[in-house]
């Protein structure tokens, strides 16, 4: 107890001096900030290794660094690694500002971070669903022309990728993606053979070529007491949402049409007949389903062939089902996710930023290297077709010899996003799929009730009156 007293007295003394400090600091913001950082992180130095591994190096003066805002390091870290390796750039010149949240929350984190004018930002990673929040905002992002690009520079890039990066208010091109987030349907070929007698991906494609056959195949599987055809409703929704033929908001009005009710009924059938499992997408049980015999397939986007979805589903290298997967186009061409690179309005490192964007989009050498390293289907069509033609790339190991690029090449050709993207997509799609889930699990008794909840949900989120909802 004696020690306790001593400690207490010591802490009290420390505390007093700290408050004194504080009193002086509140006025001068920068001093306050750095003092706080020192105070808050006095023990940080010794764990430098962990910190730099996470790629956050906020302590160094970030003014001359290329600061990349992203919500996870799944892409940014390998990108920066490869970029530095191939171009000989000093890694310390690049600062990955990882907010470490789900994609859907990144937008709010960015906004708060950027609200402080002292915070540095050069390139922002923006997800397709909400990229317009920033791309339409000239206070936050710069047109790519400011970096010296013209639209013709991106002639090798898939149209829909370029289209998505354009501001819907001014039409200026403000962001570009390195990936064509096309996706396919990946299935277990051992299960397919066992239950469906399918031997090749082409035969499988026949079994899932559109939604009606998809449903019929799912029924065949269930009747044979077999696995669910697809893992989750969320996956189906990703694909189905891609096949919507109009934008969600037209003339400032939320469009709730036949498409919505049709999907709701479809989902209801899938869910309650056991054609998909009841697991939620992105829940901890989701990918482990791939190691059970309860599920035959996953819908996977280009970024999902690695650890994110498919490799994880197979249990990693040497996992229970590793190498037993195959990929087909599936019922409908779709893109899922996809990250756009946009220069921040406060960019102070244009040259390096341009070099970085170049490297992953129009720089053929860079794009090829990244595609082969990560197994990602790049947005540069020319590069991808060259890789396929060359035949060096053998496909993601989890596919056991199939080259997913060949499949994704067919998918990417079929994607048309022109005029279908709105700034509200993230909110609307999220609310819609929540409402449909509610209909499936019985929270809402009828489709009408679910659609009403959907409208209410959107109304509660888009509060600035820019979208009318009836």
């Amino acid at each position, binding site marked *: 107890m004696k020690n306790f007293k001593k400690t207490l007295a010591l802490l009290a003394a420390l505390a007093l001096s700290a*408050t004194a400090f504080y009193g002086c600091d509140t006025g001068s913001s920068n001093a306050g900030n750095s003092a706080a950082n020192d105070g808050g992180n006095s023990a940080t130095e010794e764990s430098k290794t962990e910190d730099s591994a996470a790629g956050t190096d906020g302590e160094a003066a970030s003014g001359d660094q290329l600061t990349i805002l992203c919500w996870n390091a799944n892409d940014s870290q390998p990108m920066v690694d490869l970029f530095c390796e191939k171009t000989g750039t000093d890694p310390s010149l690049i600062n990955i500002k990882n907010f470490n949240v789900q994609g859907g929350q990144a937008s709010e984190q960015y906004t708060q971070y950027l609200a402080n004018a002292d915070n540095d930002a050069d390139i922002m990673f923006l997800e397709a669903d909400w990229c317009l929040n920033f791309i339409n905002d000239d206070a936050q992002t710069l047109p790519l022309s400011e970096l010296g690009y013209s639209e013709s520079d991106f002639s090798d890039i898939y149209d829909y990728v370029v289209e998505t990066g354009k501001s819907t208010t001014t039409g200026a091109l403000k962001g570009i993606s390195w990936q064509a987030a096309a996706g396919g349907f990946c299935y277990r070929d051992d299960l397919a053979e066992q239950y469906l007698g399918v031997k090749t991906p082409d035969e499988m494609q026949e079994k899932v070529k559109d939604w009606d056959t998809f449903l019929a195949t799912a029924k065949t599987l269930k009747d044979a007491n077999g696995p669910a055809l697809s893992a989750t409703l969320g996956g189906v929704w990703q694909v189905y949402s891609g096949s919507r033929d109009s934008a969600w908001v037209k003339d400032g009005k939320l469009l709730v049409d036949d498409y919505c009710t049709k999907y709701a009924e479809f989902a209801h059938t899938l869910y309650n007949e056991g054609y998909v499992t009841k697991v939620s997408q992105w*829940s901890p049980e989701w990918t482990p389903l791939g190691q059970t015999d309860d599920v035959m397939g996953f819908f996977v986007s280009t970024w999902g062939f690695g650890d994110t979805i498919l490799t994880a589903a197979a249990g990693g290298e040497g996992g229970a089902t590793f190498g037993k997967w195959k990929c087909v186009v599936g019922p409908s061409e779709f893109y899922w996710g996809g990250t756009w690179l946009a220069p921040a309005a406060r960019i102070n490192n244009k040259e390096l930023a341009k070099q970085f964007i170049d490297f992953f989009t129009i720089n053929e050498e860079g794009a090829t290297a990244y595609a082969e390293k990560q197994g990602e289907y790049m947005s540069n069509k020319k590069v991808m077709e060259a890789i396929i033609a060359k035949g060096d790339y053998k496909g993601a190991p989890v596919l056991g010899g199939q080259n997913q690029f060949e499949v994704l090449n067919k998918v990417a050709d079929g994607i048309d996003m022109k005029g279908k993207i709105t700034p509200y997509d993230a909110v609307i799609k999220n609310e819609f799929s929540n409402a449909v*889930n509610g209909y499936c699990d019985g929270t809402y008794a009828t489709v009408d009730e679910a659609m009403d909840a959907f*409208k209410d949900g959107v109304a509660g989120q888009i509060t600035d009156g820019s979208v*009318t909802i009836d």
Partner: protein
Amino acid sequence: MKSSAQNKIRSISYAKYGYYFILPFFIVYFIFQLVPLINTFRLSVYGNGNFAQDYVGMSNFKILLFGGANRTEAALHKDVFNDLFNTLILWFGNFIPQLALSLLLAVWFTDINLKIKGKTFFKIVMYLPNIVTAASVAALFLMLFSKTKYGPINSFLIDHGFISENDPIDFVKGKWQSRGVIMFAQTWMWFGNTMIMLMSAIMGISKSLFEAADIDGANSRQVFTKITLPLLRPMVIYTLVTSMIGGLQMWDLPYLYKNGTAWNKSTETIAVFIYNKFHIIPQNYGYSAAASVILFVITSALGCICFAMNTDKEDKKKKALAKEQRKQAKLQSKSSFGGF
């Protein structure tokens, strides 16, 4: 025999030290709580999202309390009341079992006639969940109660034939199931704390009362209803009110206990509403602040009720109370950590 030193001390005015000593508290309170509070009130009469700078008068309150013509206003109104209702339900559902259990255990642990083996062990175990971070509790319960057969609880129920494999219980999204889990988790976390609070209150009741009752041949039920409970009344009321104020603030579990980004409307509390409205883009500081002010009014009303209840009691039994009051006061500390 007054020494000159003593005289000297008497003549010095020490009043200024009083000001010095309470000054840090008031400075900090002013900057970190009073200004923010006033700021919240100010924000509640300003606009939302892109119109955050505009003065809008009482319109935020009008929309939240009475809804409005368009769907957005109606939805916000519905949300606020839905969330207030949830808050009430969740509080009620965890407070009743919590108080009942804590009271029972506290009476047993303080009963001198009962020789309970391993009393300290039980007390220590029961207090344990309180020190586990709420975030970890949410993570843990989310995994235990996972809604499919891959969750431990569901798999247990399936294996023992309580439910069929194709019909697992949706503990995460189901309306009453998810509420039930949160109520259980809250009870689990806080009953040990409440129990110890009540124990110290019971131990504060004069032993002679219990001894007298013992001599008079009162049985334990009588002792409980005639002595323990009446004397504990202020304490129970106090627990009720602090718990209610804690309950109104309930945030961690409802915020974290969900799958992915899908908000669960049946467990969303008013604190979650406030948090989300100024976090999710577009930031609606106005609605958030207005909801805070509504919460403030409710809290103040409850505070006043608590005060009134205690004063009432004071008038009735002045004598016994001086002591009890002190005890209550000591337990006021509970509110300092927004607990239950």
